[in-house]
């Protein structure tokens, strides 16, 4: 465990060098696959967000899952993921109903990348969290409630 950590950190220092190369313009950052979807990230409600993503009314599916624990000890960091067993998944997104803007993150999956992505999000309060998946040209969705709990000392 200890050793493994060290190795990782060593390779991290190597990465620092690459960062310098990047900032010097020797290596250019990879091009994004699409322009950042401002309309979708600015949308407030679930419905408006889905519309901006072109997802219309997604079908609820058992083949889509919101992964991660049901309880967050702190809303600043909530581990959430999306997985799906549907074929030809090209896009996935995480939506949090009660956040000021529902859309937290979206992912574009080229062929060969598994429909299984995890990240960490902020949640202002206990809320339903939605996983949106595009399979072929259809959209599917799953949901679960994640409870955000308070700490004891009063912040």
């Amino acid at each position, binding site marked *: 465990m200890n050793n493994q950590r060290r190795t990782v950190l060593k390779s991290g220092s190597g990465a620092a060098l690459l960062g310098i190369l990047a900032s010097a313009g020797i290596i250019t950052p990879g091009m994004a696959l699409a322009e950042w979807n401002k309309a979708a990230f600015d949308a407030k409600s679930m419905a408006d967000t889905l519309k901006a993503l072109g997802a219309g009314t997604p079908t609820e599916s058992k083949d889509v899952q919101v992964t*991660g624990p049901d*309880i967050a*000890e702190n809303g600043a960091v909530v581990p959430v993921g999306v997985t799906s067993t549907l074929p030809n998944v090209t896009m996935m997104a995480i939506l949090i109903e009660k956040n000021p803007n529902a859309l937290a993150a979206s992912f574009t999956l080229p062929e060969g990348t598994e429909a299984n992505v995890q990240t960490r999000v902020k949640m202002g309060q206990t809320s339903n969290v939605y996983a949106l998946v595009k399979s072929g040209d259809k959209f599917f969705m799953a949901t679960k409630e994640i409870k955000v709990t308070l700490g004891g000392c009063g912040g």
Partner: protein
Amino acid sequence: MRLNLTCRLVGAALLALATGHALAQDAKVADELAKYREALADGNPADLLEVRGEGLWQEKRGPKNASLEQCDFGLGPGKLEGAYAQLPRYFKDTGRVMDVESRLVHCMMTLQGFTFEQATKNWYSKPGTESDIEALVTFIGAKSNGVKINVPATHPEEAKMAKMGEYIFYRRSGPQDFSCAICHGQDGKRIRLQELGNLTTQAGAGEAMKTWPSYRVSQGTVWTMQRRLIDCMRQARWPEPKYLSDSVIALETFLQKTASGTVMATPGIKR
């Protein structure tokens, strides 16, 4: 009489059912909480600070354009392996009991030529303002990973500091009548969902001390032990003691002495 008995039996059964349900709910909460903590542990952002700390350790900085690599934390100049685990300790050259942070600041002043104000200006980070001390302490702390905490406090000055730390630990005051002991003087308690170590026992103090410095997800940064203890006092609704003040070092000495023998596992990650 018979009716009474039946009633009681039914009552007991109902109570058992209710308790059973409550227990099941508590067990589920505990389960999900464990999953939450596990998910955070795999990918601790403290590692980002550790890398930055390593860079700062080696970088020539300050008016004297020197690195910190000759800093002596008690095991000899530049010897970092296990250094954190044996602090605080008495240093002959300053005639004081010092913790990792006061010693680090001492080195930034003596080796690199920074003033105290320059060295401690950003002793903790704010959003948008990084703290070199947080990064350096994360790096130095990790060099004691796997090492046993060893603060026997045998030097008379260390023994005195530990005793004074004990005094502060039990000292009640403020609008909530708090002392450290209120929350951290018993086994098996929790505040909301957070387990509270009994810091008067080796097991409890060890469990608490071994993971610091630790990434606080609520704060989005690593907290050093100074920050941790100063914030405990803030949470007790007291004024904040000064950074590196003897009160904080005394508490650290008391806690590290109690925790001695516990294997360090830092940086940790907490709510």
